[in-house]
């Protein structure tokens, strides 16, 4: 186990380094930060001087090495755009994204699993077919359009829910949460649905497919032959076995949720790291972009690790194999 974690950690570091290198080498193509940092009155000489001061003229590897050196000591620099320490900016935006991702993840997971189980158990029912088809509509339209349509319907026409932002937030130490206020909770609904829709469909179909597979397995047949109740078979035996692969994929999807939040956050003016990133791209705010990409890589890596550990927790086969003997 320890060896496993160590190896994963090592791999993770490599992954992060590669991500850093790749993203860093791409920034030069996004545009010239100096162009956006200075007013139009700035002279050519002024711009050159600022570029020099930012170290943008240094060779690529020097820039990268400098960046790594600073990043290693926790200093991700100052945002070119908002002039605040990047670390602080990202940390202040992270709760919004994490809460949104959490709620959409839970939504996707709960709804996805229940629908998946239902459609697997009632394979040919009218309702199942409708659920299956309707769920596809959700993934057949781009997220941004779904978001805008939701805003139009629920915020403008019906006026039930807010159209943008996070509502009132409460500060708990470093964390700001929208869970504790009515407006905060109301604000979560639309973005969470928009963001979770795709994953929900995915999980639902996955659960359905896995469940059908499991229901055909010998041990389910044997459980039936022993006269166990349908409840025990479906929710005790079948569901648990279904969850092993589902948890892995759903876990990895959580990472995508965070990444895909870029679009949802933009549409709903959700003050999370995704919106921060998009704004930074438009401003060529290199320190923020670099930190964001590393953060996303880190989140993925961590999720990967957690999912693997979860896998060990669920599946006794893996757990015991670790400790050796078979007989």
């Amino acid at each position, binding site marked *: 186990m*320890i*060896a496993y974690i160590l*190896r994963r950690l090592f791999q993770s570091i490599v992954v992060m380094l590669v991500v850093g290198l790749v993203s860093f080498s791409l920034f030069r193509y996004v545009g010239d930060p100096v162009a956006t940092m200075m007013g139009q009155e700035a002279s050519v000489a002024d711009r050159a001087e600022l570029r020099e001061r930012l170290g943008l003229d240094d060779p690529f590897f020097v820039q990268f090495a400098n960046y790594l050196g600073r990043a290693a000591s926790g200093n991700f620099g100052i945002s070119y755009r908002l002039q605040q320490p990047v670390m602080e900016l990202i940390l202040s935006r992270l709760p919004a994204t994490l809460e949104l991702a959490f709620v959409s993840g839970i939504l996707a997971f709960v709804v996805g699993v229940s629908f998946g189980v239902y459609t697997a158990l009632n394979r040919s029912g009218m309702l199942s077919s409708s659920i299956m088809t309707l769920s596809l509509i959700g993934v057949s339209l781009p997220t941004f359009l779904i978001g805008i349509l939701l805003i139009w319907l629920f915020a403008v026409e019906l006026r039930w829910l807010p159209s943008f932002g996070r509502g009132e937030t409460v500060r708990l130490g470093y964390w700001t949460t929208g869970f504790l206020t009515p407006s905060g909770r109301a604000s979560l609904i639309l973005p969470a649905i928009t963001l979770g829709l795709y994953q929900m469909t995915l999980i639902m179909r996955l659960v359905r497919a896995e469940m059908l597979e499991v229901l055909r397995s010998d041990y389910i047949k044997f459980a039936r032959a022993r006269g166990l109740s349908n409840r025990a078979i479906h929710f005790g035996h079948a569901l648990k076995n279904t969850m092993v692969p589902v948890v892995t994929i759903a876990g990895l999807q959580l990472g995508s949720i965070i990444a895909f939040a870029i679009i949802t956050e933009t549409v709903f003016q959700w003050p999370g790291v995704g919106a921060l990133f998009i704004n930074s791209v438009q401003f060529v705010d290199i320190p923020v972009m670099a930190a964001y990409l590393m953060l996303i890589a880190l989140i993925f890596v961590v999720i990967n690790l957690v999912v693997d550990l979860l896998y060990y927790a669920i599946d006794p086969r893996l757990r015991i194999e670790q400790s050796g003997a078979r007989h």
Partner: protein
Amino acid sequence: MTDAARNGEPAPPLVEVKGLRRVFDLSKPLLNRLLEGGGRVSLTAVDGVDFSIRRGETFALVGESGSGKSTIAKMAVGLLRPSAGSVTIDGIDVAGKASADTQRRMRRRIQMIFQDPYASLNPRWRVHAIVEEPIKAFGMLPDAKERAARVGELLSLVGLDPRDGQKFPHEFSGGQRQRIAIARALASEPNFIVCDEPTSALDVSVQAQVLNLLRELQDRLGLTYLFISHNLAVVRHVATRVGVLYLGRLVEEAPARELFSDPKHPYTRMLLDAVPDIEMEGKERLTIAGEIPNPVNPPSGCHFNPRCPFVMPHCKTVVPPVLDRGNARVRCHLFAEG
């Protein structure tokens, strides 16, 4: 079986297996071993096996699951490299470094028939392509027409209709598939065929067809077989000589008749006893206690000692040597001199 073999005239051995050994490394990655302790773990699947097969003979290997039968078969056809020892065909080492040309000619003469007729034929290929593949691979008949004719011939030889070549494997029953597999094996005109449990997936009525076919082909083409099975009754019907494997070691090797009439090693005896008695003579049976041990850490001394009814103290510590007893060879302390 050729007449020569049946008459017991000494023919020179075609296949010789000497000190064959194969070890699989099951160790965890280095880092795990460093952190969690535990050294290298290895599994000796085949351990010092010697035997030879004469031209036109059938040598059968029997043994329970995991005893190393398939591993020997794979080494015999060059699918696996031995960790030690060698398999030679007509004096050429299968895994050796003979010239490419020699190697190629030698390989052509070895073929294999597998256990599962459903998995041994590529489901996406038509039967004629399957049978044709060895001919193409060894560049035997450059002309497509000739090849097609040869495929038809081979299909007829195994009792199928040449027109069946247009079909896909899934359109055939298990027995017919095994015939296709045999036709493929014969395509490169081999004289040594390794049959790894060729009938264990088949029903008895079909099994009889396949076994009869194999024998018929042997008579007609003078083939030499290494025949692997866990079914002693089947082995009795095909083998000239039989080797009994237990956890990678050949515990007894004898002419077929002798082995069945006068089994020596306790394991062989118990195996024979375990065969259900279809004749219903109600004979006394000696059921084997326990199950085959984990091959990763087999019992010390004689591997069979924990299940042996005649176990002696030194069975647990001393590996029994191979003892010649007439035409038979046994690995058991019971047969030690004195």
